[in-house]
């Protein structure tokens, strides 16, 4: 059993958390003309990196989204921080 640290609630059991997606995926602005290729990239392409990854996770009990940095091979959690902190 792994312990993840929610930036708001502190260390909790891994079963309280949900993987939401890779960090930094930006939805194309629909006001612009968007090609099928661009939509496909946005909808489907994953970086799916081996090693250090940055992801968005949700702590289900407090419903807050946050950034988790972890190693996708060892599963070690390297850092967790709020999305707000990341935006600054």
């Amino acid at each position, binding site marked *: 059993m792994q312990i993840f640290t929610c930036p708001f609630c502190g260390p909790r059991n891994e079963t309280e958390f949900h993987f939401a997606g890779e960090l930094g995926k930006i939805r194309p602005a629909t006001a612009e003309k968007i090609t099928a290729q661009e939509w496909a990239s946005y909808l489907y392409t*994953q970086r799916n990196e081996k090693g250090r990854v940055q992801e968005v996770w949700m702590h289900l009990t407090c419903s807050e989204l946050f950034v988790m940095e972890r190693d996708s091979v*060892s*599963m070690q959690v390297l850092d967790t921080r709020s999305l707000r902190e990341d935006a600054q």
Partner: protein
Amino acid sequence: MTRYSVFNLLREGLRGHTGWGKAWRSPAPKPVYDAVIIGGGGHGLATAYYLAKNHGLTNVAVLEKGWLGGGNTGRNTTVIRSNYFYPESAALYDLSVRLYENLSRDLNYNVMFSQRGMIVTAHSEPEMEMAARQVNAMRLNGVDAELLDRDQVRKRAPLLNFRADMRAPIHGGVLQPRAGTGRHDAVAWGYARAADALGVDIIQNCEVQDLIVEAGRCVGVHTSQGDIRAGVVGATVAGHSSVIAKMGRYELPITSYALQAFVSEPLKPVLDTVVLCPPFGTYVSQSDKGGLVIGGGLDRIPSYGQRGNLPVQEAVLAGLVEMMPALASVKLLRHWAGIVDVTPDSSPILGPSGLDGLFLNCGWGTGGFKAIPAGGYLFAHILATGTHHEISRPFDRSRFVTGHLIDEGAASGIAH
């Protein structure tokens, strides 16, 4: 290569089994090949075999960073089936089952394909209607299927939970009689031995570290054993497809997840078919050695670590106990995880990668083992001719741009 036959078995038995020889050579890599295949698992080895057998291309190398079949080929639950919904999938996976049916003879290697049937149970009246729809779809696609009622399921798998107070009572199920299990290592070894006999170089402990790209075309690979140039390169690396994609700078709609499986201590025969109970997400068969081979859903966290986690273990094993309460006291012997390459529509990707000279056979997700013969057969066609086979064409990666997805995740209820 010594042919495996009753005659040779008798002869070797009389002289202390000293004359069998190696099943395949271990050559040093040549500087140039007509085709280089990255990844010595089932799909890579099958591709090499069919390149040599069907297309006469024998100047071929299979590069494996570890040992043959050490990835997902040796980490699955050995189930072989073609109980899919869409015609495109039925054509693909039933080609695989048909090739498996003759594979032991074709390769002169016993892959122990046992067509013991597979039952997917239904647990309510609406689920029985969906089961009937599934049976009809499979039959229209030319695949064998039977709709079973509760008593017929009970007759075939009496170990299942038929108690009146069961949370999800069994109403019936879908049977594919031609489905079954195979010996996973034997599939890798059989293809390796047969490909080697046709002249293919199988090079283990040879890790591809980068691609050689000249004028926008992939013309070879940098490896831990030096540079190897190739007329065409094929990648059959399953969970590591995105790692090769990064080298080739093309995009892939793939997420790598760990998929766990379990084997129990050996038991006397208790189950002579494969059973999947969708409400619990658990499926089980019994191996020839007596161990129950148990599988479940994915760990829903992207991962390259070839090991599982406790919450999913608990869910899978709780499901097993609900399915077959008599197994509650059975001990586990081993458990492992493989890294599977999952696409948004749960269907594979075959064909051009986006980088000229490099082709893909990936995205099989949780179902790569059963597809090994078809994946190799079709990928050999693609590498040899540079164009799609009619069966592989719908699985081109362009479907994610055109929107022609083959969504088996939704259609046949694959648990991912």
